[in-house]
């Protein structure tokens, strides 16, 4: 009898829940894509460098310290806490740790999507389907950058707001706390207030413009806005965010802000999600709640406007859609197939209720870190988590280190972060990925130089550029080759380095 009871207890611990299997699968997938995540985006180097600076100096810089073009200019450190986290994990565990942390945050975000979907729909299979589709759609933006914290917090934020709407959550205090963390982690904290405004306006319409009935929602907005000012730059963080988004030139020159290109198969899961949402709206027999309508509509528009919003679309829209999809299935009870599906679903739910779960996900997370720290390569290509020599000027940087060129260097924009990671504080860059800080004027000057537009040589002269590092085969490289004033110092399949020789 006793043995039987121990066996049952063991069963409850050892058998994983569906959500746990989903979490582990996503975690493993993100770990497998580690080198890809690090190398698609050029900013990781900058985040690590800034994080290290904050750790070492105990100071959050509010003016530029990384470029020679903008030294001393006021800077809004809207990602300082993320940078600090990246810096800490890097110091402790290297790039493997950065990938591990990213995997944890992304898998956590999608697990929340699954959990809230399950809470709202009571159908784990539909929640799982939504989660898988969401993972496929958002995988394009699985990157080692502070944006992941926004995805994570947005997932929690909307789940808790929905609980408030349904009356499951009574206290609203969690929201200002989340916002305080969010505003210091990433500049897209504004997304949280957008989600709140969808709920607030939607609730007002639902309840016939009654502020009294929505007092809690009002307080969430007021307190969240007020705590959003608790950051190193106060209200300046709002100005920076809207200033950047309001600048058409910068937005259209930042790849991640471009709209999704549905000719690329990578965007098809997102397209499929849009059509699922259309199908669900079409088949739904009851009116969709206004907060849900605003969320689905608003995030669809924003994701179609900028591909970087697709992960936010995923974490905000999927729980609401699964809830509506469940409603359609329940209404469609005349079908034998649906009856059988619901029976099967109920059996799964009963089994899951008797399982505690959690053990395997903890083992997976800890074991992965141990293996990575032990030097075992867990990525799909078995390359290890390092900056790729084909993407970044890894070998050229070695050469720069040996030859120590003097003076200001002009660099390829996506390599700015990597060069900072390698050489700061000895060397500063011309420009890097923080476009919102460098602004339109410098970005235009940069563009003039690389496209050899009229006056490009003057700009190089004005900034006293003594050397140039550009990708192999670039137009600028060809022009410098034809010029007597410049001499090639180094080249490999990734990068070329040129030196200014006139007058020497």
């Amino acid at each position: 009898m006793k043995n039987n009871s121990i066996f049952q207890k063991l069963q409850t611990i050892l058998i994983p829940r569906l959500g746990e299997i989903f979490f582990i699968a996503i975690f493993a997938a993100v770990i497998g894509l580690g080198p890809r995540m690090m190398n698609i985006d050029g900013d990781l180097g900058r985040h690590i460098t800034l994080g290290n600076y904050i750790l070492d100096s105990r100071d959050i810089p509010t003016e530029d310290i990384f470029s020679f073009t903008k030294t001393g200019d006021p800077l809004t450190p809207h990602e300082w806490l993320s940078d600090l986290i990246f810096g800490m994990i890097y110091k402790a565990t290297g790039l493997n740790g950065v990938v591990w942390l990213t995997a944890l945050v992304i898998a956590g975000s999608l697990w929340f999507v699954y959990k809230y979907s399950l809470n709202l729909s009571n159908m784990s299979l539909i929640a799982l389907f939504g989660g898988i589709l969401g993972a496929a759609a958002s995988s394009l933006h699985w990157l080692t950058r502070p944006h992941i914290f926004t995805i994570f917090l947005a997932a929690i934020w909307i789940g808790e707001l929905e609980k408030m709407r349904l009356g499951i959550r009574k206290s609203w205090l969690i929201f200002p706390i989340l916002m305080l963390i969010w505003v210091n982690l990433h500049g897209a904290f504004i997304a949280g207030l957008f989600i709140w405004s969808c709920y607030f306006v939607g609730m007002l319409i639902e309840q016939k413009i009654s502020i009294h009935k929505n007092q809690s929602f009002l307080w969430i907005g007021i307190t969240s806005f007020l705590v959003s000012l608790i950051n190193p730059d106060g209200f300046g963080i709002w100005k920076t965010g809207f200033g950047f988004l309001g600048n058409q030139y910068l937005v259209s020159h930042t790849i991640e802000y471009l709209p999704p290109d549905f000719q690329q198969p990578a965007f098809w899961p997102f397209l499929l999600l849009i059509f699922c949402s259309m199908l669900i709206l079409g088949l739904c027999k009851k009116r969709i709640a206004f907060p849900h309508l605003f969320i689905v509509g608003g995030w669809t528009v924003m994701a179609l406007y900028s591909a970087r919003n697709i992960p936010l679309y995923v974490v905000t829209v999927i729980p609401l859609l699964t809830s509506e999809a469940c409603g359609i299935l329940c209404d469609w009870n005349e079908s034998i197939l649906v009856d059988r599906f619901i029976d099967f679903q109920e059996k799964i739910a009963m089994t899951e209720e008797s399982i505690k779960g959690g053990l395997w996900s903890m083992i997976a997370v800890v074991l992965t870190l141990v293996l990575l720290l032990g030097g075992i390569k867990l990525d799909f290509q078995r390359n290890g988590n390092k900056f790729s020599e084909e993407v970044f000027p890894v070998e050229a940087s070695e050469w720069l280190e040996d030859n120590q060129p003097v003076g200001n260097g002009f660099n390829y924009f996506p390599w700015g972060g990597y060069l900072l990671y390698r050489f700061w504080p000895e060397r500063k860059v011309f420009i890097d990925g923080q476009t919102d800080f460098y602004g339109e004027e410098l970005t235009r000057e940069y563009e003039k130089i690389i496209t050899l537009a009229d006056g490009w040589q003057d700009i190089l002269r004005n900034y006293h550029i003594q050397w140039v590092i550009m990708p192999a085969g670039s137009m600028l490289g060809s022009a410098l080759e034809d010029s007597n004033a410049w001499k090639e110092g180094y080249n490999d399949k990734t990068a070329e380095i040129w030196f200014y020789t006139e007058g020497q």
Partner: protein
Amino acid sequence: MPWIKEEKLYPIIALLLILIMAVRTPLDTDMWWHLRAGEETLLNQEVYSVDTFSFTREGSAWINHSWLSQVVMFLTFKAGNYYGLSIWVGTCAVLAMFFVYLQMKEHPLLRSAVLLFAAVVSSVVWSPRPQIHSLVLFSLLSYLIFQYKRTKNSGYLIGSLPIFILWGNLHGGYVLGIIFMGSVIVGELLNKIFFIESSESLSWRQMGIFAIFIMGGFLVVLINPFGLDMWRIPFNTVGVETLQNVISEWASPDFHQAFQQPMLWMMLGVFSLIGLSQKSIDGAELIPLIVFSWAALTARRNFGPFALVAAPIFSRYLAGVIENWLDVAKQKLQWVEKFLDKTNQNNQELKPGFKNLLNCVIIGFLLVGVGWKIVKVNEREFVLQAERGIFPVDAVEWLGSSGITGNIFNDYNWGGYLIWNLRDNPVFVDGRTDLFGDEILNDYLSIMSPQSNLPENLDEYQINLVLVKSDTDIARALQNTGWKIEYQDSISVLIER
């Protein structure tokens, strides 16, 4: 009694506004090679189907699926010059929107407003090209299907057959009609699966008849000079992988550009309205709407068909939502009811004579607007100025008078213009993507790229003359590799080996 009743006045105003919108300077980059092909067909009394315009595909067979449109275009141009083409595009746009209007059954003011919205969305594809015929035929076909669903009279489906015969000769876009009919059938199946019933739902027997007409449509498109090859056309065109890199209209929409945003708002609007309704949508509306939303999100050239499919649904659901809200508002807010009563009363109090005068003034004013726009946008100076903004007008004039002949490497978008204006210089590429395929288009992109190995690539095609935009990488690179600039202005540069 007013001469023009309200239910006719609103659509007349809307259609005249659409005509004003659609009458434009005919300047599409593909227009010119269509005109030239039409001219060749008439000149030789044989459908133009072997390439003579380019040196890269010279002598190759070409399935000229738009031959009849080209003949119509050339005859229109011959008869009315730019004015003719401009009026022809405007008329097609108005016809397409008129058949959409007929599919709406709500208040005329609402229908007209939605029609204008749909017109703005589809206006992206109103250009002097054969695809404007596809838009009209698509709209007419959807009207016939709408009538069939409403009346269950198979006579309407018989009307689809001549449409497909005409379509198979006017434009390869006939496949849109097949897809539309196919999606209606899938939608009807969805109705059966989800037990969605409405007066417009089809029985199994009616679905069978409908399916027979889809097959019939698919078969009758073979009545054309190219026979079975016509079935290959959609696959040939979509199969060109380089398409979206060269032609912007085949690319996914870029909603950062204001002129593309109306499609986004219409899609958002129609699905929001469906979400706000308290019933399931007819599957035969939902599936075509989803399919053409997909098409529009994949390639912006499908904005037109999307708008034609979405507009009647938009109108229906908007009317439902407005009705519900007005009911609630009347109950909650007394002034709403008073305001509506007062408006109705004021309207009834107007004397018929005054109404006639007012209507005539409005319509007359719009007709003057149409006339003014036709004249204004087709004035020689205006057209020339517009042409100079996008085509190498002066470079072509210079080249024509210089006597320099031979193969010319050209900007993709200028191929048609050169075919029409420079008859002694075969082009490298033009808008006939199905003719050139990935092979030539990839070579074109390779030559144009900053990393191009120019001498080798240009030697391969024995190219001694390059006419491209003056601010391109290739223009800068050739100047650095010893080629000589023969002519240059702010738009174009002509470089000779």
